[in-house]
């Protein structure tokens, strides 16, 4: 087969999609692990996420691919970038002497062994119990979104409600965690792509009078052992 036919084959077949997706994923993951600058790591993460989304589409999970882009790439990684910028860790890292000796060898060993075993396990055939889940069949009539929505709101309603509670808790926790007494830029309003306004108060007056005041000094002081005095 000459080069033209191979290219044709590659472009036409699903292997091409897979190859591109896999390339994006692996390149992104390697970038996250290997880049020095955290902003570059975030960008590499975005690349990996795009690759994953491509693979989702390839497997028929359309809605999930869209949600992946919107939520992961569009919100989570943006959050990461916010924090990176806020904390200024994008500047050149002044490498302080490592307090703990490098765990790189152990880490690499763990990673490799995990991969190998996962590969072995993936070839094992007796995991499938044949038990039918509560969801419907993947292939069948109806759009993916429609079926996904039906299964979530009908079969898995309780987990859905619990996750909504979880989200509320997360928002409240985030607000509490980053409250500060008198500092500009104190309240980074942490929220998801939802529409809630940042509910963090203005720095200064009024903060100490709320009910959360007792938590505040303790949480902050306890977590900033070496911080320069505020």
């Amino acid at each position, binding site marked *: 087969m000459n080069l033209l036919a191979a290219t044709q084959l590659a472009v036409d077949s*699903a292997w091409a*999609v*897979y190859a591109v997706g896999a390339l994006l*994923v692996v390149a992104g*993951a390697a970038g*996250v*692990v290997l880049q020095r600058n955290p902003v570059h*790591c975030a960008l590499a*993460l975005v690349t*990996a*996420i795009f690759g*994953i989304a491509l693979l989702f589409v390839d*497997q*028929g*999970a359309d*809605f*999930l691919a869209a*949600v*992946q882009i919107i*939520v*992961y790439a569009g919100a989570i990684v943006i*959050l*990461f970038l916010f924090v990176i910028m806020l*904390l200024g860790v994008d*500047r050149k890292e*002044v490498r302080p002497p490592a*307090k703990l000796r490098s*765990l790189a060898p*152990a*880490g*690499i060993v*763990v*990673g490799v062994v995990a*991969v190998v075993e996962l590969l072995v396990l*993936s070839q094992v055939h007796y995991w499938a119990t044949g038990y039918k*889940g*509560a*969801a*419907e*069949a*993947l*292939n069948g009539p109806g759009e993916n979104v429609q079926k996904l929505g039906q*299964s979530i709101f009908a079969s*898995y309603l309780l*987990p*859905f409600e619990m*996750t909504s509670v*979880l989200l509320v*808790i*997360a928002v409240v*926790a*985030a607000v509490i*965690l*980053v409250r500060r007494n008198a500092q500009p830029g104190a309240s*980074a309003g*942490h929220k*998801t792509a939802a529409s809630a306004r940042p509910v963090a108060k203005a720095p200064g007056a009024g903060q100490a009078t709320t009910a959360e005041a007792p938590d505040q000094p303790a949480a902050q002081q306890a*977590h*900033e052992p*070496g911080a320069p005095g505020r």
Partner: protein
Amino acid sequence: MTVPGPWYLVLAACLFGIGATGLLVRRNILVMYMCIELMLNAVNLTFVTFSRMLNDLGGQDAVFFVLVVAAAEVVVGLGIIVAIYRRRSGATADDISSLKG
């Protein structure tokens, strides 16, 4: 024809391994967190793959929930990181070691 399932599984496994290694090797707390996200994505890919292989929509539901939880977790985790590392440059995970025995 489509790519058979196990190829995706292999890819997810590699992604997971890379994420695990990155978590243990990097010292910057935010990069460590990103590696955790990588691992979560690997799991998502596995779920979707199995959903296709077993012809069951439950895998995608699981991914849905994993996505939600991951988002919430990122929110809280970053909040903690911000609370700890305010105005500290070059913060590493080794600096918060006061909870030791």
